[in-house]
Each structure stands twice: as structure tokens, then as C-alpha cells.
């Protein structure tokens, strides 16, 4: 096992735009909004940035390919800008690039910005992706909800959970996130909902109804990272440092080999196990203070509670219904509203998750503030259950 990233890099500043249907803003405006907040938070000027990582997923309708959209929007001083794309985990990839550059000593201060402008599509939901030349000849004509919804059928079959029980549990996942999102001024969806509303919503992809699906939002988020030493030299204290950064990528095992049962994320378990070892966490259910997970759909969040080894396998749905992941529960999850209500501008989401954990660890989360968090975990997933990339990051109080 490599030495890992634990406590080698500190977060110097973060920013996040208002998420939502930003009819007023293009991708450039969103990037600038997140960037200016992060720069102000970091208290540095542009000349101190050594390199930047830029994440965006859908270049067809968004900011375009390459590093130039970021460099031009922010008028960066001709520093290196690398565009990264790793499905919905792209934002975590931008962060990983910046953190690794600092940890390697190649950069003193690095910037990560993620953005997605989704609401130029013309209809609700994600734009139809360009799948290349082979996939459309064999892959089902599907959608993100249809792919993730399949977790439910396999989970029910594996654990003997009834359709009604699982539907109630996933409804509570969304009820909880709506309650949290209502307290977040930057969130896309800010209205609390009831379980009855969730259960009665129009079907999108069986068994996922409208309220089981996250917001399709415009937004951007940014992080500026440096070494703890440089952070202190810039007058920062009570540092939030990176404890673990893991990424696990499917290799066809789930989709082509008869081993995976379809009810969980193979990659998430691998990434989570490595992240806990990297961060030195042995009892995640007790030690993780809070988490932001990739709740693109309610069922994704439910099975992720088990994949992150917080809930025992087959018991996640009970923990959900027991309120264990509510704001006042054992491990608050999606305290900012999550993808569900904060929104899901794809390239920004990984950074948005870290933004909330960072605010919470600094005691700056306003009405949503949890008491004395030590470790915040983010789980950022891209692709589909049968073939995906899964990022698990842990940040926390320096020295914890």
C-alpha cells in the first residue's frame, strides 16, 4: 500500500455557485461565480496559482472541450489547465489532479474547477449522450434512471425486501434530502416534501418516481489546495486536510462476468475500503461524522450506505427508515440537500460535495451546521451500476 495522501494537502479555499435552472448564466458565468468565492476564501491572487484542473462532462452543450474554456473564463495567467472527464465523478477528478500536483511538489497552489451547464438542452433530464459507434448498436436504449433503477430489482431479490418496503425506504431518502435542501440557500430545490408526495409521483423508471431522481441543474464549484505548511504561512489555521482520495473503475467484471449480483456497487466497496485504510479509519459507522454521497437516484444512495460499510449489507433500507442518515441521525447524509436538492451539474458535483464537507468542518454551514464534525466523506459516482467510476474522498480536521 502506498503511503497515501493523508494530511499532505490542505484546502485553502472553496467556492460554489448557486445551483439551479440558471437561465441567466452560461458556463463561464458559473465558473467565475465559484472561482471568485474560492479565491476570496483562499485570500490569494491569481499569480499564486501554479496549475489548474477543469472538469466538465458534456462538452456538446456545455463549455466545450479542452482547458481553454476555464483559462479564458477566469483569465488565468497562462498556467497549465487540464480538462478531466470521468462521467459524473469528473469534479472529484479535478480535485484529485490538483491535490496530487500539490502532494507531488509540482505545484504549491493548485485550482480545481468543475462546471456543467445542463439547462440548455430544451427538455427536462440529461441530454442524450453521444455513445460512440459501437454502443448504440448493442446497448439498450436507456436512460440514467433506467440504469440505476435496476439496483432496486436486484436488491429486492437478493435481500427479500418487498416492493412496498423498498419504495418506502427510497421515498424517505428523498424526503430527508428535501428537508436538508430547504435550509440551503444555494440549493436548486428548496421545498420540503412528504413521503406521500414521493410515493405518488409520476413514474420515471420503475420503481423510481420523479422524487427519486436528482435535480438536473446548472452550477459550478471550485477548490484551491496547497500544502499545510503554505496554508499556515498564508495565515490559515484549523486546517481542513485531505485524508483519502480513492477512485475505483469498473473493468467489465460487473457487466460481462457472472459474479456481480446487480444489487450494489462493486467499485464503491473497493474505493471505500481503500479510502478508510488511507485515512486510518477503522469503524466508519462511528468515525465518519457526515457524508455527501452520489444520490443521483434515491436507490443509489440507499445501496451506497451499505457499499460504504456504514449500514450492514441488506440492512441499509432499515437504517434509512430509522432516520440514521437524517440531519439528526447517526451519520447525517446529504446535509446540503445532496444531488437530489442541491442539484447535479455533473462536472461540478464532486467539488460541490467537498464544499459542504469543508464548510461543515470549518463551522460555516449556517442553519445546517452539524456539531463538531471531524471527518467528512464524499462519494462521487459516474456511469451506471454495471459499469462505473467511483470516487471516495475523506477530508477532515488536520491531525484527526
Amino acid at each position, binding site marked *: 500500500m502506498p503511503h497515501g495522501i493523508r494530511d499532505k494537502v490542505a484546502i485553502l479555499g472553496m467556492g460554489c455557485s448557486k445551483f439551479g435552472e440558471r437561465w441567466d448564466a452560461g458556463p463561464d458565468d458559473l465558473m467565475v461565480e465559484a472561482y471568485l468565492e474560492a479565491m476570496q476564501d483562499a485570500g490569494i491572487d491569481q499569480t499564486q496559482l501554479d496549475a489548474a484542473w477543469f472538469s466538465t462532462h458534456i462538452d456538446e452543450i456545455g463549455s466545450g472541450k479542452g482547458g481553454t474554456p476555464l483559462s479564458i473564463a477566469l483569465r488565468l495567467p497562462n498556467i497549465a489547465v487540464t480538462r478531466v472527464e470521468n462521467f459524473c465523478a469528473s469534479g472529484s477528478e479535478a480535485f484529485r489532479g490538483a491535490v496530487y500536483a500539490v502532494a507531488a511538489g509540482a505545484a504549491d497552489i493548485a485550482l480545481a474547477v468543475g462546471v456543467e451547464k445542463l439547462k440548455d*438542452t*430544451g*427538455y427536462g*433530464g440529461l441530454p*442524450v449522450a453521444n455513445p460512440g*459507434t*459501437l454502443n*448504440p*448498436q*448493442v*446497448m*439498450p*436504449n*436507456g*436512460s440514467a*434512471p*433506467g*440504469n440505476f*433503477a*435496476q*439496483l*432496486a*430489482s*436486484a436488491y*429486492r*431479490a437478493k435481500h427479500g425486501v418487498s416492493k412496498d418496503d423498498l419504495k418506502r425506504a427510497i421515498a424517505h431518502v428523498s424526503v430527508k434530502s428535501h428537508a436538508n435542501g430547504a435550509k440551503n440557500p444555494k440549493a436548486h430545490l428548496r421545498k420540503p416534501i412528504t413521503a406521500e408526495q414521493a410515493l405518488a409521483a*409520476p*413514474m*420515471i*423508471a*420503475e420503481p*423510481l418516481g420523479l422524487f427519486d431522481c436528482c435535480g438536473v441543474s446548472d452550477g459550478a464549484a471550485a477548490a484551491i489546495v496547497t500544502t499545510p505548511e503554505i496554508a499556515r504561512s498564508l495565515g490559515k489555521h484549523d486546517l481542513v486536510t485531505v485524508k483519502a482520495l480513492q477512485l475505483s473503475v469498473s*473493468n*467489465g*467484471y460487473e*457487466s*460481462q*462476468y*457472472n*459474479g456481480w*449480483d*446487480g*444489487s450494489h456497487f462493486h467499485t464503491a466497496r473497493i474505493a471505500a475500503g481503500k479510502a478508510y485504510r488511507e485515512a486510518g479509519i477503522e469503524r466508519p459507522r462511528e468515525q465518519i461524522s457526515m457524508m455527501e454521497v452520489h444520490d443521483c437516484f434515491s436507490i443509489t444512495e440507499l445501496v451506497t450506505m451499505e457499499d460504504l460499510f456504514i449500514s450492514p449489507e441488506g440492512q441499509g433500507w432499515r437504517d434509512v427508515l430509522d432516520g440514521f442518515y437524517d440531519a439528526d441521525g447517526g451519520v447525517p447524509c446529504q446535509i446540503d440537500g445532496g444531488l437530489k436538492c442541491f442539484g447535479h451539474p455533473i462536472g461540478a458535483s464532486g467539488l460541490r460535495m467537498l464544499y459542504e464537507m469543508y464548510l461543515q468542518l470549518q463551522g460555516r454551514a449556517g442553519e445546517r451546521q452539524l456539531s463538531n464534525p471531524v471527518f467528512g466523506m464524499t462519494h462521487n459516482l459516474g456511469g451506471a*451500476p*454495471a459499469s462505473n467510476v467511483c470516487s471516495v474522498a475523506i477530508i477532515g480536521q488536520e491531525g484527526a
Partner: protein
Amino acid sequence: MAGIAAWGAYAPRLRLSRKAVTEANAWVAPNLKAKGKGERSMANWDEDALTMAVEAARDALGPDDDRSHIDNLYFASTTAPFADRLNAGVVSAALTLEKSIVASDVTGSQRCGLTALGQALAAGGTSLVAVGEHRRARAVSAQELDFGDGAAAFVVTDGPGAAELLGRGSVTDDFVDHFRGDDGGFDYYWEERWIRDEGIVKLVPPAIRKALEVSGLSAEQVDHFCFPSTFSGMAATVAKAVGIKPEAVRDNLAAVMGEAGCAHGPIMLAHTLEDAKAGEVILVAQFGQGAEALVFRATGQGQRPARGVTGSLADREVETNYLKFLTFNGLVEWDKGMRAEKDNKTALTTLYRNEDMILGLVGGRCRETGVVQFPRTRISVAPNNPAVDTQEPYRFAERRANVLSYSADYLTFSMAPPNHYGMIVFEGGGRIMMDITDVAPGDVETGLPVRMVFRIKEVDEKRGFVRYFWKATPDRTAITSQSAQAAE
């Protein structure tokens, strides 16, 4: 003497209620109300003449996916999807026939199915004849009520098989009872009385007499007379004209499936083979710019199909939504939504590079570990054993499978929403995420037994190309047997 060694058939599961049609059209065509009885077979949106022919051929070939004994392939249809691309080539690829076969499309007339069968019987060697028809008719026409969609297939060998060919008769005359130009439009018909009296009654009997003469048989010796026609009593009239006994006239299945064009003579023949006794004489004829007639003697031998015509007709789902029929047949300009705007251009290079994968559902099997996978790749998927270049072709199409996970997706564009798809796990190894067809909400659950069917994947309306791939469909035979076991 050559004969039919095996046969198969296919009728799409959907059966359109004729009453639903005539009631919907009563305001404009009250004269058609009398036709509002029974049902006609109706291709699903993802079926065409070619896919139905493939299904009939699989029924004839049986579950053994070694098809190296087939020397020749004849695909017959007047509604083939391609005017210039060998349709038989697609059928061949779907059935994973050898590249060395002789393959041809036979078309141009309602009798072309029997013509193809006659050619195969004369060709020598082992031939596969697959006949499919997806009929087109205007809304509010009599044809849309009379017609049906379907397919039949035969394996023809040099030996007598299940039915030995005794004789063939043919008449060619440019009698234009109807025609359809090459603009993809509809049939244009002349007066029924003229077609009947001047066409069928005068042109079919000489073909029949010739076939009987070659067979050394008299008309009274015919036990089963197959003659498709949408005109009522037409077969009986022809039988009387040539001296075939009235009781020999076979049911033309008009009440339960309609008339499937050039596939209908072959379908009636396949239906007859299911219950003809050893020694009985079968005469099948079909009209079209003359006529084709074939005489067989049933042997009681040969390979019976798992499904056949009887099985196909029993596997049915009544459709009472006439508008759905019109939509599936491209007769309604409907709002498909922005999600349907995606470009379905097919990279022909990619298609050819992956031909056996896409059209034949061929994956790979590792020589060293026996691990089966789809698709075939240079590096094996087996965990902890990424063997390189050990994969041998492995056919999935005839393997039994089950649903591992699924969803019914209302968001994505589908011609028949919700679009069902899921992870399909094969007995013997391998899994594929694929579309599930011929299902309604509530039909699919984890563990459902499924089988593979060759279907239209996507239609590129802009360029006139049709993409084909395989889909899962409930294995209703396996489901029935499971339920029976559960009941015991």
C-alpha cells in the same frame, strides 16, 4: 428425391382485434363493419419481414446452433427492408451460417415464398428457406383487415425428410391484380371480380395440374390443399376447378392471423406438416403473376418444430389499440419528443468489424478457463485470470437466460414505452445488458426466464438504414413449465 427435413414458423405475438379497427373506422367506412371479426397478427414496432424470417428459421433449425450443414439460403419477401443490401446476408449473419453458403433474396410476387422453396428443392444440398412478410396497407383499407404479418421456414435436403417433393408446377403471366412501385408505398388493386375470374381461376389450375402430373397423382389423391387468398371461398373454388376434394381444403387462418403475403402459402404448408399423417399428399399453391404449385408426400419423419404455426398462434396478446397499429406501421405522424432527435447513423465499419457480435450474438469463451463472456475481447474478463488471446467464438442466441435486474423506463424514447431493459444472465455463463421486448409493465421481474430474439434495434429514418440486434423476451414455455412445477 428432395424433401423438407424440418420446418418452422413465426407469427408476431400481437394480434390486432379487427373489431377495434372497424369500430374506429365506422365513421368513414361503415362498409367494412362486416369484416370486424377475429384478429390479425401484427408485427411489433421492432419486427419486420427479416426478423420474423429469422425467428421462423430458428424454429426450423432447432436449438443446435451448429448450422454448418446449411449450403444455401433463400430469403423470400416482398417487404424486405433493403432494396440493395442482401437481406439474406443479414439472415445468414443472424443465424451464424457459414460464410461459404450461396445466398439469395427472392422477391417480386406474392408467390415468391413458394418459388424460393421450389428453387431450394431443385438446388440440391441442404438449403434453408426463410420467408417473411410485414404487410403494408393504408389506414381504413380492406387490406389492413385482411392482412397479417408472419413467417415460415424450411430446411430442405436431398432426402425425403418430413415431406418428400413429388412435383412442381409453375405458370408465369403478367396478370397485374395489384402492384406496388419501388417508392415504398402501398398496393394498388384492380377489381376483385376480375382478379378472381380472369386471374386466379384461370392461372392457378394449370400450375396445379402440372405439379400433379409430374407427381403422377390425380387431384382426388390430394389430402391437404393449401391455397391462400383473401377472397372468401377462393381455395374451395380452385379445388373444385381442378377436382380436389372439398374436405382437403385447409383453413387459411384468416380468422386468427390474416394473410401474410408471400409467407402465407409457406405458413399454410408448415401448418399442414404439423398434422399431416405419413403417406398423405399435400398440395400448396400460391397466386402471383401466374402461380406456383408444389406437391409433397408426408413421411411422418423429420424434425418437428418447437413452436410451429400452432405454437405461434397460441402465443398471443390481443391488441385493441388501433392507433398503436397505425403508429407501429408508420401511418401516424406523431410527436416523439426531443429525446428521439438523436442521430441513428450507423458506422458501417463498426458494424462489419463486430458483425458476429451484433448480428449473430456471438461472444467468446476462454480456451483455458472456459469462462464465457460477451463481447469477445483480446483480454479475458475472468477475474484474476486475464488470459490474452484465448477467446473462441461462443454463440449466445440459443442459450437460456434469466433476468438479473431490470427497469421499465418511461423517460427514454421508445416506440412502445416504457422501454424495458436489464441485465440478462445466461445459463452456461455470460451476461448482457439488453432491451427486453414483447412485454408490458408487470411482466418482468428478477429471475424471469428469457430467450433471445433478433429484432430491429433502431431505424435511421434519415438514411433508410435499419439496425438489428438481439433482445430478450420472456421464455413463456419455460415460465409455464416453472408454474406447472410449482403447482405440483
